[in-house]
């Protein structure tokens, strides 16, 4: 299990839920303890050339597993697209093929057809851009193509959960890594508008396969003293009453 750095530090519950869920579904899960970060914060800021250390560490930590599963679309995409390591390119290539975001792993590899979870709330699903347009875990609104959604497919298996419709099904939340501080005004405005879409449609929770988006939306919800909460999709799928 690959737990992104900010999930490890700020949202351990999402990682715990991921672990418990995978174990419930019969996986033998290991958490390599020396893992840190995928290197995306540097790379997206234009410093991909500084990610060698992170890449090496990643290869050392994750070589040899059948699958690498991560509760974040964004970090998964970064590994899939950018993991290279001097002298260990073969292992890096292997990892790039074996790394999965959690919902795509559940749908495509484990082929989960039912869950025992219960979550009796109205939930808005926020599509993270990297999960959506990078990993294609759901159909993108811009394309003329058949609709599908792996996270939605899983959420539909949860007892009592009601997905709320949104006015803009896959507009970006504005987090964008360092964008959220460099372009603070636009970033916050994008976040506020996303939150408003969910809230105006009656969502009690906003969920996503990416906690970076949720961290951003949570920051805005809490500033607004809103009752609406954010929750990682793993926590819903692992939720029992």
């Amino acid at each position: 299990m690959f737990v992104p750095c900010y999930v490890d530090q700020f949202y351990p519950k999402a990682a715990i839920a991921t672990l418990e869920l995978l174990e419930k579904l019969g996986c033998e899960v290991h958490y390599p303890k020396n893992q840190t970060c995928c290197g995306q914060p540097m790379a997206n800021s234009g410093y991909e050339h500084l990610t060698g250390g992170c890449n090496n560490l990643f290869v050392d930590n994750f070589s040899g597993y059948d699958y690498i599963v991560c509760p974040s679309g964004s970090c998964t995409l970064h590994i899939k697209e950018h993991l290279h390591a001097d002298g260990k390119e073969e292992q890096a290539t292997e990892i790039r093929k074996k790394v999965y975001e959690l919902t795509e792993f559940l749908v495509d590899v484990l082929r989960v057809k039912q869950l025992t979870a219960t979550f009796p709330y109205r939930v808005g699903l926020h599509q993270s851009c990297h999960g959506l347009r990078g990993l294609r875990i759901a159909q993108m609104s811009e394309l003329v193509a058949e609709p599908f959604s792996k996270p939605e497919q899983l959420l539909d298996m949860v007892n009592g959960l009601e997905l709320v419709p949104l006015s803009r099904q896959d507009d970006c939340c504005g987090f964008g890594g360092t964008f959220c501080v460099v372009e603070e005004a636009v970033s916050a405005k994008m976040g506020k508008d996303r939150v408003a879409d969910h809230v105006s449609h009656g969502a009690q929770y906003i969920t996503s396969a990416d906690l970076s988006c949720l961290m951003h939306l949570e920051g805005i919800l809490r500033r607004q003293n809103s009752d609406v909460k954010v929750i990682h999709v793993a926590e819903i799928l692992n939720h029992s009453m």
Partner: protein
Amino acid sequence: MSTATTKDHPHLAAEFNRDEPRVNWHDETLWWVRAKRDIAAHKLPEWELLRETASQIKLNVLSNLSTYLEQFEANAIKNGIIVHWAADAAEHNQIVHNLLEQRGITKMVKSKSMLTEECHLNEYLKEQGIDVIDSDLGERIVQLANEPPSHIVLPCIHKKKEEIGDIFHEHLGSAKGESDPKILTETARQHLREVFLTRRAALTGVNFAVAETGEFVICTNEGNADMGAHLAEIHIASMGIEKIIPERKHLGVFLRLLTRSATGQPITTYSSHFSKPQDGTEIHIVIVDNGRSIQLGREEFRNSLKCIRCGACMNTCPVYRKSGGHSYHTAVAGPIGSILAPNLDMKKYADLPFASTLCGSCSNVCPVKIDIHDQLYKWRQVIVKEGYSPKTKTMAMKAMALTLASPTLYRMGGKTGRLVFKYAPFAVNNKLNPWYNQREMPKAPDESFGEWYAKRKGAKNS
């Protein structure tokens, strides 16, 4: 026109965001155009195939550009068109000026041409004593307001109708307080009619230049390019070298994509073909490079030259919608502008590839399938390597890379960070932290997942 500013995108965007109701209005207006595009695209089951075909045709063009350009030139000359070549903006502007000067022309009407915006032709001609009137309604509005266009297809999309009423009242004599779009449009029509009838020279852009026939096609909704060109004794058409398509039949692909992507219309009101001058008149084409062959040589950024200037990437871009076209301080704003501009001046436009969350919506709406968001990522790497990023950022990134490459430093840093969040929230919750300005910081949990996992493992093993 250029914006006389040295402020970067974050600052200009922050200024735009001081008026939140206006940002909402701007965002909704452009989203409405995006939604219209979606409806138009979904009416064509072959939409994705059309995009792929257009992309491939343009790839062929870029791979054989010099051949097609020479073929176009030869056929255009055969048709009686006079062809000029300009290496850069200055040469383009000079060619246009010479053509006017030789004929003693001091007034010109111009339809929409983003290339002339890129070349700052209007300012140049003004300095030479030539009066240029833009005949596209939106362009005329921003010209009267002394502003650059904020969008390549919808140049005055940032202006509300009441503001346009004020501008027309001041410059065109419409009634004070008049904001009815029909009445304002009629005011502009009357004003422009007089311009069309009295101008001896007309400049237009070029949407497509057909190598096979030597003709070129101009697409407008207002017919203003035709009005100008047909009534003038000299028609000057400015085109970038990338506007070439090999054969006339390829128009069937591009014309179907262009306006559906741009505004959601099935086709532009006027798609006019110009192949030879009428008796007693001249057609001149100025073929302009202005950095395009340099971009063609940049393998990773080459296919940005496939762009047909539909503006779909702007309408869908959440950053564009919420920061406004002027915040990009370049002629072509939005995602496509942010991958074109650094080629022209990497230092001046070093901020633009960072004015994006890399959400990827731009690449998905692009009718010629330019990998816009991937190129934004790649430009970031180039800009940093060329030394155009702030030194403080480089230092912070180096420190971050060092910490994240070491499990020990990472664990120490994480623990310290969480302790700070918990016991000294004032250290992060303050004005120096841009996150905190409009957002709360995440709550720090007592233990990290790593710490929880180690305990759990210990408990399981004991």
